[in-house]
């Protein structure tokens, strides 16, 4: 054995085995051309330089290992590089990495800016609409007094209340009591007092408003602001439920009521849930229109407590309405030829209580045997859901449009009332019209014309109560005036908001009345619909199975 006096190098190995490609190279039989070998670490592993370089490249590229992590797999010795590694390259590499980190921060920042600007745009739009709504509802004089067209002069709470106006208007069209009265909160409550509004107190008031029976008129002592007498709000709400669509949809009918039966999400969930129940109940039912273009819709009338009772009594016989269960159902067909418009399709729901049964029998007699039922049963849940979604697409637009148009409608109706008041003195008293007062006029007394107007209004609507109500209302007016004295504008100026609110209420009642009329007419049409008989002329008589002695 040869003694090696010097440290052996890679060339001293008699057989070299590359641990990467497992190629052997014998010392005395090198391939042509001989590849470069390297012994990069402290153990016995050797490799072709090209193999090792490729291995290191793979590690760097696919595992992101930096130079400090490249080491021998067996002994852990760090691989060291020699050769071309100028300062310039190292510097540029580190700059590159720093820039990449910076780039991540930038992209987060951009995303945040995008979101914030989007939100700011929405906020500005809502605020603008809120200012517009206040202008419409309270009249231009009050608008100038409270807000002015110059946003820099707005009180701080305007920036909170105004953007809320459109949302609360839309939310008012739900059936939830709290949401239904929510437009009042941003629209009216803050303005009469320049003091900051306590939101909790207002919410409380909003809750008490809707359930106040018509007889109670006097404001509770300590009430902060009472801009609209309760009767106007607790006037029977008539709204429409949209539940359980059956056929392909067309834009839903008028939904402009103070309440909606359901929110859209519930609507979408409902059709699949209702289906099993509907199938059972509808085994005998018939859809009036023939299959194909004949989509039948059902709708449901959900009314406030008082009105609900009357309605059921008139149409279906005495039935106690459950507290919040759906009311009686009318069945009305879709009239495809009616075209889009206010008197369009009607949508409804299968009643889930026994009182629906008696109506079912009516329908059964009125309509021919059930082919459409089978067709409907065959529809899969997917189609039902698709219809539901299409419904809410169009009906959502109507809901929102109706909600956002309410201030304008109020203004128009208020103007109409004003016109009438010029002719009819009683109306003039009701709406408590006064000539507009320039803002510079000195403050009036506490119970001035405003107090008188409120007394007259309260007297008119407080008729249901006892005579003692009058004293209460006088007291209430005084209290009211006391609070309003904090803001002279309200005490003196023409109560535009009052006639606007009245007008809006009248409009809503009229609209809902029209809707009920429509439903009644449609129901009648459905019941009395007959299919016209045509003669058998032109048919080959042998095809018909005629009796032997035809008459």
């Amino acid at each position, binding site marked *: 054995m040869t003694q090696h006096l010097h440290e052996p190098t890679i060339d001293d190995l008699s057989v070299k085995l590359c*641990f*990467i*490609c*497992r*190629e052997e190279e014998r010392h005395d039989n090198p391939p042509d051309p001989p590849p470069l070998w390297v012994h990069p670490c402290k153990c016995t*592993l050797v490799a072709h330089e090209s*193999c090792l370089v*490729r*291995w290191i490249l*793979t590690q760097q590229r*696919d*595992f992101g290992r930096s130079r400090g992590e490249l080491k021998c*797999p*067996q002994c852990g010795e760090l691989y060291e590089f020699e050769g071309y590694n100028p300062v310039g390259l190292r510097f540029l590499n580190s700059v590159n990495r720093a820039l990449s980190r910076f780039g991540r921060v930038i992209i987060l920042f951009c995303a945040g800016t995008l979101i914030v600007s989007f939100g700011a745009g929405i906020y500005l739009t809502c605020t603008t609409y809120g200012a517009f709504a206040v202008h419409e509802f309270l009249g231009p004089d009050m608008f100038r007094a409270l807000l002015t067209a110059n946003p820099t002069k707005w009180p701080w709470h305007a920036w909170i209340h105004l953007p809320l106006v459109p949302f609360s208007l839309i939310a008012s069209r739900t059936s939830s009591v709290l949401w239904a009265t929510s437009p009042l909160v941003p629209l009216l409550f803050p303005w009469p007092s320049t003091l900051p509004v306590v939101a909790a107190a207002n919410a409380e008031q909003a809750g008490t408003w809707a359930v106040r029976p018509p007889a109670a008129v006097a404001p509770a002592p300590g009430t902060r602001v009472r801009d609209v007498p309760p009767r106007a709000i607790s006037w029977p709400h008539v709204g429409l439920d949209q539940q359980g669509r059956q056929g392909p949809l067309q834009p839903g009918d008028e939904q402009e009521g103070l309440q909606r039966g359901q929110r859209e999400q519930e609507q979408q969930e409902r059709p699949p849930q209702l289906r099993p129940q509907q199938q059972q109940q509808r085994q005998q039912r018939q859809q009036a229109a023939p299959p194909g273009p004949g989509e039948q819709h059902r709708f449901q009338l959900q009314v406030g407590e008082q009105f609900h009772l009357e309605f059921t009594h008139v149409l279906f016989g005495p039935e106690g309405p459950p507290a919040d269960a759906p009311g009686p159902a009318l069945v009305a067909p879709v009239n495809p030829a009616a075209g889009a418009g206010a008197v369009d399709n009607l949508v409804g729901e299968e009643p889930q209580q026994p009182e629906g049964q008696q109506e079912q029998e009516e329908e059964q007699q009125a309509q021919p045997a059930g082919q459409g039922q089978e067709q409907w049963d065959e529809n899969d849940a997917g189609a039902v859901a698709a219809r539901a979604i299409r419904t809410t697409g169009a009906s959502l637009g109507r809901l929102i449009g109706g909600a956002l148009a309410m201030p304008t409608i109020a203004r128009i109706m208020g103007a109409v009332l004003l016109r009438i008041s010029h002719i009819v003195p009683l109306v003039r008293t009701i709406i408590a019209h006064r000539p507009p007062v320039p803002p510079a006029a000195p403050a009036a007394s506490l119970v001035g014309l405003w107090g008188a107007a409120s007394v007259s209004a309260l007297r008119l609507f407080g008729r249901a109560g006892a005579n003692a109500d009058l004293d209460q209302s006088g007291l209430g007016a005084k209290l009211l005036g006391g609070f309003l004295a904090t803001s002279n504008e309200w005490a003196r100026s023409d109560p535009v908001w009052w006639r606007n609110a009245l007008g809006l209420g009248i409009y809503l009642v009229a609209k809902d009345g029209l809707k009920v009329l429509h439903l009644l007419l449609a129901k009648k049409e459905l019941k009395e619909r007959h299919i016209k008989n045509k003669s058998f002329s032109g048919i080959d008589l042998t095809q018909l199975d005629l009796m032997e002695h035809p008459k």
Partner: protein
Amino acid sequence: MSVVYSRRLKKELHEIQIEQADPAKRAAGIQLLQAEDLKTWYFSLEVLGESLYKNEIFHLMVRFDTEYPFKSPAVQFVVSDKVKPPVHPHVYTNGHICASILGDDWSPTLSVMAICITIQSMLASCKKKELPEGNDDYVRTAPDNPKKTRFIYHDDTV
């Protein structure tokens, strides 16, 4: 370079076949079932001695790509009517194996046999037969090739 890849695999195959033929050298419990090409090989694996997997036979499928040995092969248990993967905290029911040597810890010093032996010892040292966490979710969404999954290697004690 496919040259490296094919040469090395041929060598490995040659060595394995020699080992398999010689009962003295053959690794106990590991048997080459099929290696007709340089793309997919099948092994049968058995854990000998006292273990939770006594008398259970598993099949391993090893798939190579042209980057071998710079990249690890795709190794997974075969799922078929005749064989099922073992119930092990690192083995999913679709046969995918969570082992560091198949991912981050792979190096060209390892070989196919080394992988089989490692997996065999992984099974032998298992204390409790259980499925990995999130097995159902993974199996539902897993790709066909386990190398496409980014395994997180934790719990090396099992």
